[in-house]
């Protein structure tokens, strides 16, 4: 029995091995490059293990690329958009999961359609919209708040779908029992339903945050001022359109930008499977 399982395990890992190698390859390249000094990065043929271990890539990118500011921008934009999306999606998902109304099928179709329209398809319209809205001295172009609202809007459909799927799985009788005990509906929601909805909402929040953190095209188009740019955009800008690229700095920056997100996402990823197979997907 155990031998059979061992044999099966070896076979399974063999089948998966090409994919595993390809998935891990860029991460290993990133780690290897980030820990080399510049001179060693610019040598051929390259080798995996640094001859001289060096953290100069990290210190250089931190001071030169101003990655600290970029990380703060990313936290503010992704965090703000997550809060906004959830504030709007939680009530809507509650209505979809718990209440009957005639417009529900139409609303669900509307969400699905809006889910299919990627920001990049609408970017020209989004840019003109942002340029038409006065904000401060100028317009919403080149503002973090503009990007934040756009991210929230594009995160809505997925959030409502996924939250509604989870909310529908929370038994109604607990809420009904609360009503019978003299709770108003709102009170039942606040004290009975919402605590049970916290895990699903947290998963949804992580997805929304990671999506905002990783987004590229809206940030590229809207955020001109380097002091306002997100970390994803900053790292790409270290490479694109530059004649000489210091790759150990770029890889150090990429490591700082990706690792925290990968860890959090890896942790919640298993809770996603159900929501994804049920609803819309990004």
């Amino acid at each position: 029995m155990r031998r059979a399982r061992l044999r099966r395990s070896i076979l399974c890992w063999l089948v998966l091995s090409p994919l595993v190698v390809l998935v891990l390859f860029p991460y290993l390249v990133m780690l290897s490059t980030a820990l080399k000094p510049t001179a060693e990065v610019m040598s051929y043929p390259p080798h995996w293990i640094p001859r001289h271990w060096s953290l100069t890539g990290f210190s250089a990118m931190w001071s030169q690329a101003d990655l600290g500011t970029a990380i703060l921008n990313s936290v503010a934009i992704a965090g703000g958009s997550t809060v906004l999306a959830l504030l709007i999606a939680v009530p809507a998902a509650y209505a979809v999961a718990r209440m009957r109304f005639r417009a529900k099928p139409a609303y669900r179709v509307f969400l699905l359609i809006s889910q299919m329209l990627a920001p990049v398809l609408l970017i020209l319209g989004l840019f003109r919209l942002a340029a038409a809205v006065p904000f401060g001295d100028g317009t919403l172009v080149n503002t973090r708040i503009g990007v934040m609202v756009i991210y929230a809007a594009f995160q809505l459909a997925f959030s409502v779908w996924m939250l509604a799927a989870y909310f529908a799985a929370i038994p109604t009788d607990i809420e009904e029992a609360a009503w019978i005990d003299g709770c108003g509906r709102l009170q039942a929601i606040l004290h009975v339903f919402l605590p049970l909805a916290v895990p699903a909402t947290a998963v949804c929040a992580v997805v929304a945050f990671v999506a905002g953190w990783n987004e590229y095209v809206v940030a590229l188009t809207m955020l001109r001022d380097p002091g306002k740019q997100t970390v994803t955009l900053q790292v790409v800008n270290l490479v694109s359109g530059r004649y000489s690229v210091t790759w150990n700095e770029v890889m150090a920056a990429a490591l700082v930008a990706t690792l925290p997100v990968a860890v959090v996402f890896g942790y919640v990823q298993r809770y996603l499977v159900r929501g994804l197979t049920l609803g819309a997907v990004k």
Partner: protein
Amino acid sequence: VSRRLAAAARTGKQPGRAVVLFPHGGAMLPRLSRAGMPLLLILPSLVLAIAIIIYPFFVILRLSFANVSPFGQLRGFVGWANYANVLTDPIFYGSLLRTLIWTVAVVGGTVLISVPVALVLQQDFYGRSVARTIVMLPWALSLAMAAILWQWSFNADYGMINGMLQSLGLISAPVQWMARAETAFPVEIGIGILVSIPFTSTIFQGGFSSIPTDIYEAARIDGASAMQQFRFLTLPLLQPFISIAVVLNIIHVFNSFPIIWVMTQGGPDNGTHILVTYAYELAFRLGRPGPAAAVSVVMLAIVFVFTGIYLRLRREDV
């Protein structure tokens, strides 16, 4: 409705009065509230989606029929001129053809690889949760960042790919992967497949776990081999999931922007443009918003067609 909400909130603090407002213990809310409440709850999401998603669509539609200056001023209505303008551009046809190749290759490759991967991940074996996490890993990575990592790996002068291929004796001199479209575009397709596998194999895993196990026992008793079980049981039962994965992937891959834009910006010599990078270049690099809007409308129309197919596929859910 808002007054009722306020009343409910107030009574919430004084449970004794809730009985007066809702004599049936709250289970039967007053009529107006019952009809208006769900609409009130979905209203903010409608407002945001209409402002940020639906309205820009109409902005683009209008732009596509307008004479737009490079700085964005509208200078009158020009009918189909922007569309005609695009149709005379040879780069448009190249991009259109490449969009087809890109979509078919990435979606086809993704589905072909994801079925066996999901099948393996459904087995019971040592280290399965580690394997699942590794397969899902590209999902957490920003596409733009993945493009940067692979761009460096394929770097002609110092990249790890050239180094490894040369040490294995597969190439005699470093290859300029990104300098020629003939090599750059296939590399981009490969990366496109790699980043689409997590989502697709997740759908298939959901599909596999929805198949009841007892039908396999019945098949075994009837003497069906493992191959026959896969061919005549698993594959037909997985079919609806494959259809959904194909359509959703078409919609995502068709307008996948960051990989190509970050790695080659559509170049060299416009040889890696697909429609979405071509439209972006027209709009934000070449100062031709009118034709860019026309290309966007064409892309949106294609997305609507596939969204329609998707809605039909999953009609029973909606």
